């Protein structure tokens, strides 16, 4: 009986270790994760931008659908910018890690403005949608300008 308890204890400890290992993804994976989420954001923002700019006819239903997806993706981005990815190969500038509080504030702003966009899009007032879209993409640009390397090969 006692032996069984020991075995169970060891197993429990092992499980804890495995669990800990699962909780700490490889830095490269975190980079891929955030790049994927950002790609997904861009995927949804592109057609919204085309509608707002009048390149394609404004489809309120589709816009609301895209805005809702963007609002779900936005809060997922920050998770990929874990400090463990500091030295991983990515377009994030080193200064991002020195200004982490500012970066995280920008992430929260992106989240709130994209959620507002989703709710405004649901209401269907085109002028308000345009305005809130402008506010939201400014959040994107702000971080790109500040913390993202320019593509100089």
């Amino acid at each position: 009986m006692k032996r069984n308890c020991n075995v169970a204890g060891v197993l429990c400890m092992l499980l804890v270790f495995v669990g800990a290992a699962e909780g700490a993804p490889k830095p490269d994976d975190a980079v891929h994760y955030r790049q994927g989420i950002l790609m997904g954001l861009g995927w949804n923002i592109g057609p919204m931008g085309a509608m707002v700019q009048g390149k394609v006819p404004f489809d309120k239903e589709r816009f609301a659908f895209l805005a809702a997806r963007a609002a779900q993706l936005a809060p997922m981005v920050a998770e990929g910018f874990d400090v463990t990815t500091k030295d991983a190969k990515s377009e994030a500038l080193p200064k991002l890690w020195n200004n982490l509080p500012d970066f995280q504030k920008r992430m929260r702003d992106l989240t709130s403005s994209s959620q507002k966009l989703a709710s405004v899009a649901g209401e269907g007032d085109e002028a308000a949608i345009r305005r809130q879209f402008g506010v939201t993409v400014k959040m994107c640009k702000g971080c790109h300008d500040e913390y993202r390397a320019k593509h100089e090969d």
Partner: protein
Amino acid sequence: MSHEKIYVWDIWIRCFHWLLVVLILVSWWTAREGGLLMKYHMFCGYSIGILVMFRLFWGFWGSQSAKFSEFVKGPKAVSRAIFDLKNRQPGHYLTHNPIGGWVVLMFLSLLIAQFATGLFANDDLFNEGPLYANVSKRVSDWLTAVHHANFNNLVALIVVHVLAILFYRTWKREDLTGAMLGGYKYLPTINAINSSHRFFRAFATLLLSIVIICVIVNF
């Protein structure tokens, strides 16, 4: 030596210069704001393209002071003009002086590069230059980076230009800004230049420039 008010810069050169100033400022601001304002940034870009195209043509068949053959000079004239900088008196040029002539060519080159790279640029959001579809994302990203870097070159040259104007004003007592605004320079009467407006020729050149830029943009 008596001085006379001589008409040096025709209305087209003056419009070119000051419109360029306004358009560069608006381009800079709209790019900094980004997002939905990029529409106006692109509009400024096309307008600058038309202006530069016009200036190139005007450098061949425009009024005398605007011609490249008048102000693009060899190393001898340039070194003489550099040597002359130390003298505290106006240079009496009917057009750009030999140093300024090369600066004009540098400005035009930088603007052409800026216009050309902007056509293929993207902002990673939803704005794309009109020829973006013709290149891969990778190439577009690279040209966008060149577009950004070249803007810094442009700013550097603008700073040099403004400092030079201030230098001529304070050290050589030469009012180049006034000449670019009103068109007149006060020069010894021995000088003469034919700077007529040539309205018909200017309109035809402007039209040609607009057509060429429209064709490029919609290629």
